């Protein structure tokens, strides 16, 4: 933790082992992690990486085998009974499959945590009304979950999670069961809540898109360990671990891009295919026009893509540079001087 920043969540030397029929399984291995108040923190990993266990350690649904978990000044790794139940009301959770009670209407589902907290009926009703408006479900109060779309169900989940004014919101693959458009709408709602209520959000996912869109910082998990962590933009710009590179390429190297590049290679065997990576303000530099004017080369744009992260923009551009061999070489060395990361994809012949 840096000076002056309050750590809302602190994990110290966390190890979690499970006993299975095939012996012991270590789901989380000696993890240290600190998450600041008001931050949106993402944990990314493939299934089985231990991220599901990690998020459940944060509200005491799982207890660590060793180490301490402190969330909102409560030591979740050791508290029990009423103290744990009270603490959980300030650390709420939303789920991949929403986990709504189908026997209750939207309003009754949202009222459930308030009933648990012992809020009197009149206050409960007023609070439910507020929450329904907050998540944009006006008019659907009396509907049952079976009558809602996936996105609406998750909105109910979010309203329910916010009912007791929590300090921390845990998102367990909250958008993984939703289509891309609904995913974006739910992510926008989470950012809105984070900014308006100052809520600390921890989310786990296997989609880099989710991390890119809303997280300030990210931790990459593999086999129970955090293999890489940092500001999202920084991780995008210079991924270190092999698995991180794979996740980053989920966004930059889509299948479509790969196909386009392959086709261009076949159609235009001349020239150089170069991938330019722009980060932050450099996205605004007129690199391409400069290239054409100064070096007498032809530049054709093959593919371009800009992704907005919470800490700035991140863009990739694939161009084909064609011309006299010397000119192309000069152009390439120029590119190396302008603080734009370049990567030669294919050489001419």
């Amino acid at each position, binding site marked *: 933790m840096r000076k002056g920043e309050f750590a809302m969540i602190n994990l110290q030397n966390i190890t979690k082992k499970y006993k299975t029929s095939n012996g012991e399984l270590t789901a989380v291995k000696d993890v240290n992690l600190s998450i600041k108040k008001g931050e949106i923190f993402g944990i990314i990993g493939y299934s089985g990486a231990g991220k599901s266990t990690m998020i459940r350690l944060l*509200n005491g*649904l799982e207890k660590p085998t060793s180490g301490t978990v402190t969330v909102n000044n409560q030591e979740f790794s050791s508290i029990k009974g009423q103290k*744990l*139940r*009270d*603490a*959980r*009301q300030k650390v*709420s*959770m939303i*789920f991949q*499959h929403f*986990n*709504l*009670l*189908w*026997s*209750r209407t939207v309003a009754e589902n949202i009222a*459930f*945590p308030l*009933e*648990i*907290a012992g809020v009197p009926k009149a206050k409960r009703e007023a609070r439910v009304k507020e929450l329904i408006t907050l998540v944009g479900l006006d008019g659907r109060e009396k509907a*049952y979950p*079976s009558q809602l779309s996936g996105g609406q169900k998750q909105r109910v989940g979010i309203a*329910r999670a916010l009912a*007791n004014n929590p300090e921390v919101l*845990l998102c367990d693959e909250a958008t993984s069961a939703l289509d891309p458009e609904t995913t974006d709408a739910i992510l926008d709602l989470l950012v809105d809540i984070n900014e308006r209520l100052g809520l600390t959000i921890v989310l786990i996912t296997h989609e880099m898109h989710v991390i890119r869109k809303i997280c300030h910082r990210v931790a990459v998990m593999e086999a129970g360990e955090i293999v890489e962590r940092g500001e999202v933009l920084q991780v995008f710009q210079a991924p270190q671990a092999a698995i991180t590179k794979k996740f980053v390429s989920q966004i930059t190297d889509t299948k479509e891009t790969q196909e386009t590049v392959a086709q261009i290679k076949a159609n235009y065997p001349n020239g150089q295919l170069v991938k330019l990576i722009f980060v932050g303000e450099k996205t605004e530099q007129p690199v391409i026009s400069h290239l054409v004017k100064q070096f007498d080369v032809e530049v054709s744009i093959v593919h371009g893509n800009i992704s907005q992260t919470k800490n700035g923009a991140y863009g990739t551009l694939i161009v084909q540079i064609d011309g006299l061999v010397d000119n192309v070489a000069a152009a390439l060395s120029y590119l190396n001087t302008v603080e734009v990361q370049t990567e030669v994809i294919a050489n001419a012949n």
Partner: protein
Amino acid sequence: MLTSLFPNVDWEKMWDATYETLYMTTISTVITFILGLVIGILLFLSSPNQLWANKIVNFLTGSIVNIFRSIPFIVLIILLIPFTKFLLGTIRGADAALPALIIGAAPFYARMVLIALREIDKGVIEAARSMGARTSTIIWKVLIPESLPALMSGLTVTAVALVGYTAMAGIIGAGGLGNLAFLDGFQRNRSDVTLMATILILIVVFVIQWIGDFITAKTDKR
């Protein structure tokens, strides 16, 4: 016309017997529901990975349920004669049939409760825990409401089985339509009495099934 088709039927006796059958079925169904629900919830919560996971409790409860479920009902009645006599002072009449009916049906219903509870999405229980719910809240506000349609259809099956049990209990002197069919119908060789008793039992069963299906559909909001 009814008198000509069923010349030997004493209608007053027939209505009395119907009333006794309904009485035995209703009381035993209500108590079976409560007892079976309690045992079923205990079985569920004590099973592995559940809130009260406890191998010993689970094994003992499971064993008792299995033993009583396996004893044929007619044998159970005979085995319970001393118990009934101790409890009620008599082994004759509709009330005397109740202990055997309940002890025979509750373990059967407890199994159905267990099946119903297992159908509940584990995530919903986890969500309630994540909100800080205590176990009693989870039982009353999650487990029972979320499994209600299955609990009701299971209860319907149990109630229909109980109608059958009352007829068997009738043969050893508990009264009701079974008793009437056996004593007045079979033993006196008056097949019209047996037929009428059968028709009335069928009507009782159909009405129970209809009510059960109606409640099940009403409670199911999925």
